[in-house]
């Protein structure tokens, strides 16, 4: 079975973010880049399936990044993916969720797949729209919010998270699923994995090679960013040191009462 995992390269959550005044976009140069944390769970789910299904199952990582993102993708290979495809092209700067679905779709058609696993959200955009857009672009069944893969041999049986539990869902392959973090804690790359990753192939595609110029870049996007600014600051609040817990509770209660919250 051929499993493909989509991976987004995002700025580290803990890093300080800056906005370019001219482009109104996040300044990515000089920032510490990481694999989107949600995608690490997608990769983990893929690696567990591979362990379960045996050696003829492969895990391929696919990522789209305007600049060269090879260093970040190496981590995915070190975790255990077999190979990676990077769609790296300056023309991709400003591509929106719809365009990303089209670009990744074109790449995945070239690469081939039985199952695509995506993270449910991205850490920077949090649109969560790419898995759905990609399933639609490829014309394959898409199953969102998967928290557990029960089986993936021949067809799929998964558990999808709902607001008050989960539902058991089945469908055919090929398909696309997006996973929640309940699929299992991502592994750390082992030293052996890190050494081995250096020899694993990373293939690069350009926009022209995928014939997706009509979907790439800010000019083709269906949304435009008008402004991007820090919110009016939330200042440091008051610190209260009560004599005992009962007084602490009373201080909170009075404060909430004053604000009409109780």
């Amino acid at each position, binding site marked *: 079975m051929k499993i493909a995992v989509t991976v987004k390269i995002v700025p580290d*959550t*803990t890093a300080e*973010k800056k906005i370019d005044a001219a482009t109104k976009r996040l300044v990515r140069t000089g920032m510490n880049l990481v694999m989107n944390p*949600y995608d690490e769970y997608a990769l983990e789910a893929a690696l567990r399936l591979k362990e379960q299904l045996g050696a003829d199952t492969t895990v391929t990582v696919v990522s789209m990044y305007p600049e060269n993102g090879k260093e970040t993708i190496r981590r995915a290979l070190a975790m255990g993916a077999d190979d990676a495809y990077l769609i790296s092209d300056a023309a991709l700067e400003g591509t929106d*969720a*719809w365009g990303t679905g089209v670009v990744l779709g074109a790449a995945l058609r070239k690469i081939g797949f039985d199952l695509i696993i995506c993270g*449910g959200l991205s850490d*920077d*955009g*949090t*649109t*969560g*729209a790419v898995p*759905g*857009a990609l399933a*639609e672009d490829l014309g394959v*069944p*898409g*199953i*969102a*919010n998967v*928290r557990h893969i029960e089986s993936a041999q021949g067809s799929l049986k998964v558990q*999808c*998270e*709902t*607001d*008050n539990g*989960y*539902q*058991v*869902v*089945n*469908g*055919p392959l090929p398909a696309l699923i997006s996973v929640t*973090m*309940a699929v299992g804690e991502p592994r750390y790359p082992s030293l052996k994995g890190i050494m081995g990753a250096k020899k694993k192939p990373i293939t690069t595609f350009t926009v022209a090679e995928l014939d997706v110029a009509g979907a790439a870049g800010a000019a083709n996007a*269906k*949304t*435009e*960013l*008008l*402004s*991007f600014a*820090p*919110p009016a600051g*939330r200042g*440091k*609040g*008051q*610190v209260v*040191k*009560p004599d005992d*817990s009962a007084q*602490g*509770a*009373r*201080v909170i209660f009075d404060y*909430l009462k004053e604000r009409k*919250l*109780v």
Partner: protein
Amino acid sequence: MSDVIIFVEQRGGHTRKVTFELATEARKVADMLGGKAHAVVLGGGAPALAEQLKGYPLDVVHVNDDADVDTYLAEPEVDYVEALARELGSSIVLVPNTMHGRDIGSRVAARLKTGIVADVTDLKLEDGKLVCVAPKLGGAFITSSAFKNTEYGVVTVRPNAFAAEAGGAGATVQPIAKPAGKTYVVKIESHVEEAAAEIGLEEAAVIISGGRGLGSAEPFDSVLKPLAKAFGGAVGATRAVADAGWVPYSMQIGQTGKTVSPRLYIAFGISGAIQHKVGMSTSGTIVAVNTDAGAPIGEFADMLVVANALEVATELTRLVEANRSA
């Protein structure tokens, strides 16, 4: 001129508060754009819910209790919404920013080859364009976006961001035809309900949240739950607590968990790491209780009370309950 369509997330005639928030906001957006406000209600129980929606300021409620919607995952709903959007022409589709809402919204956007703006907390008209305001990067930035190169747009709306106000002249409820020539393959075999909050975290007006400072799993049920109940709210948790297996991941707030903006957020035994902050910093009022006066949460909470979290929670429950029955 653009019409507005809201997708109503429902099962068996039950829906969430966000549906009525969407119904209220749809009217405002439709008036801004000079169009009509439509709702689509699908699946078992839809007719009863459609009647309930008549009390909100919509123009037309399209309804079909198609059993395929309950049997097959997402795809039938996407087909209906897409069909209605194409029939109406230029339109804005509003969906709730929930797990299911995002799934439906992203597919409808792809079908209509249009854009999607997610987690929107305000909608306004500027220079004839619909402007969608959304916090990004955990509220560290506020973005304004508009649609372009398209006559459609999809917006996922954050629960609790808009008021739900009944009113209007009474919408027309009418049947919507099942899209023809579709076959569905992804089947819902069963629903399993787990012990979960009666109110979804994303739509709760009050969230009582616990961190590792609570010491064990037990107080989530014995202390936080009664307090949440006294407020009519829901219980949340940090990632550390979910990782420790004290609560299910569905209760986790923050990066890789849920993003919430309740009117009131009370954090017990939560230090306030950035990974948690990004999921709750846009809450209305934030109160924290922690034994550490230097906990990072003090930097963005409106009030930090330095005390034993469990004792304060227990006493606060008593005060809130007494106030309610007074």
